[in-house]
């Protein structure tokens, strides 16, 4: 992308001058419809939500937030959501790493496994939650198999509790982390590992000294993206969890405030707090990411 105006690239009639010096021409205008859309349907609602949160149905400007942080049924959602989202994200990222690494060479296996693992993403959280209700239920195949093999004596509870929701998040989240990590791993020049081998590094050392440091920034980014998905958990928490108890997640609380209590300003406040908590986690992970080498990983210019 050069900054000079492509020959004839500007639409007829564009005047040179201040617009050209900013790099704007007919082609740049193409970005406008999308930008306007995002401004209208995303930025504006966010700002509207923010403002609305400071205008509670009754009380002073900060009342919504005060209420949120003083009433247990609201502030408890913060740690409950984190309790589900953080372990799920960690499990997804740290399961994805070795498997994506093992499949880094382009092969038939890589393509087949990748295609199969895409299926849970497409099925979506609702179907997986609904399916797990049957499968992990006391009469479902999973429990039946375990008791038949005498691994356990009697079925234990995996639905309508924390475990079920966690599993559901792992099933829908792992393929996403896997695909993302795979794209990072395949971007690392395999020659680097070979060079390390000739210098005496065993396969494990190659992974630890070469791949891992180069993957770290990608993993951090992957963690953030996976966390964003898990943190927004909603249908599985309701269908498969204990929505009034341990799996009362923030998304659910906000939804109830808006659609059951008809308290839009308070709902907006909840939504803002949710965004803030997520931002804090993402920012701290990305901050850690800054400690690692983030330059090109495709090998030296040979």
């Amino acid at each position: 992308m050069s900054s000079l105006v492509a020959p004839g690239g500007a639409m007829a009639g564009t005047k040179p001058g201040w617009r050209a010096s900013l790099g704007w021409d007919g082609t740049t205008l193409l970005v406008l419809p999308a930008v306007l859309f995002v401004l209208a349907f995303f930025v504006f609602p966010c700002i509207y939500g923010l403002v609305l949160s400071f205008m509670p149905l009754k009380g002073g400007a900060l009342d919504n937030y005060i209420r949120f942080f003083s009433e247990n049924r609201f502030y408890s959602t913060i740690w409950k959501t984190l309790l589900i989202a953080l372990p799920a994200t960690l499990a997804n990222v740290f399961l994805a790493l070795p498997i994506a690494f093992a499949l880094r060479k382009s092969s038939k296996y890589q393509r087949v496994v990748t295609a199969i693992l895409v299926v849970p993403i497409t099925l979506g959280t609702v179907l997986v939650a609904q399916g797990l209700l049957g499968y992990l239920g006391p009469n479902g195949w999973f429990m039946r198999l375990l008791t038949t093999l005498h691994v356990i004596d009697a079925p234990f509870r995996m639905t309508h509790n924390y475990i079920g929701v966690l599993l559901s998040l792992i099933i829908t989240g792992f393929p996403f982390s896997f695909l993302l990590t795979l794209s990072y791993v395949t971007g690392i020049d395999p020659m680097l590992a070979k060079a390390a081998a000739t210098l005496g590094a065993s396969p494990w050392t190659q992974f630890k000294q070469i791949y891992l440091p180069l993957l770290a920034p990608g993993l951090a980014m992957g963690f953030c993206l996976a966390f964003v998905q898990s943190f927004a958990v909603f249908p599985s928490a309701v269908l498969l969890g204990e929505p009034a108890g341990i799996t009362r997640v923030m998304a659910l609380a906000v939804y109830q405030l808006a659609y059951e209590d008809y308290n839009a300003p308070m709902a907006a406040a909840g939504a803002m707090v949710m965004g803030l908590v997520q931002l804090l986690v993402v920012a701290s992970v990305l901050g850690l990411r800054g400690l690692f080498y983030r330059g090109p990983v495709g090998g030296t210019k040979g």
Partner: protein
Amino acid sequence: MATGPIDGNFDILKLDGVTRRFAGITALDGLDLTIKRGEFIALLGPSGCGKSTALNCLAGLLPLTGGGIWLDDRRIDVLRPEQRGFGMVFQSYALFPHMTVRKNIGFGLMMRKVSKAETERRVAEALRMVRLEAHADKLPGQLSGGQQQRVAIARAIVVQPPLVLMDEPLSNLDAKLRLEMRVEIRRIHKELGRSTIYVTHDQDEALSLADRIVVLHDGKVQQVGTPEDLYARPANLEVARFMGYQNSLSLSVVGAQVGGETRLTGPGIALQGVGQVTTSRAIASVRPEDLVAGAEGANAIEARVTGAEYAGREFVGTAVTQDNQPIIFRSPRRIQPDELVRLSVPTERVRVFADSVR
């Protein structure tokens, strides 16, 4: 079983019938080669001849499908690359982008669990040898191509390997830098005295650097010899073509004479060259620079000029013989298209090979 890298030196490295066949392609076909301690060997050949494959097999990055490699009396082709302890310079350098120059160079020493003090000393020594002391704490991305290449060399030699492998290390540099680095590599080899195997497709590099050259073609060894041997006495047509004998004239054999010389004729051509053949037709290989236009002599080719290029100190002329075979020659004076020239050449500069086509 991991026994750690091989240390110490060796007397003989022997490649015995080394073969690599994979996915229906024979990259190496029964390679036989013996290398003595301290030698600089160049593996020379066109793309696809198997030279890089041979190097990778030596390094352990590719296993053999036949034959064996012996270091003195120790069989090494069964060892994984991290157990062999050779130094290797890759074509793309493969410097670790997240480590400084110092750490890159010290990586092999770290693998061998050398003490910190010793590592520092040896890395400093290596930096001095490749003249990069000022850049020790930079990252590879901050260095130029030539500097990166020197880091790659330093990394390979600092572990004092019995054998240094180089895979076309200069091919990514511009012409001027390539010449400079050639001098550097020769100097380092003299200083260290380590056996080196150097892969290249550039005839000039091989001639200037090697003690012995191995020419490969289609996975087989075509000729092994000193640079002078290969330059003056190529063993077959492939080697000749590769060593700059650009002219190949297909001619009739008149009769073999005593002394290994053969007389050849063609329309407007009378040549006597070195080499004995049993076929009725043969190919005469001549270098462009050995053809002299207009000189007296019994060996002569009559040709009509088709084009001339100005090359500074001389002209490079293209011509055709009376039976339309192309000839390239050089001339100090200006030549014109359609001019008739008489090119003469000394007998020992004409190499005769059998013509298998007819």
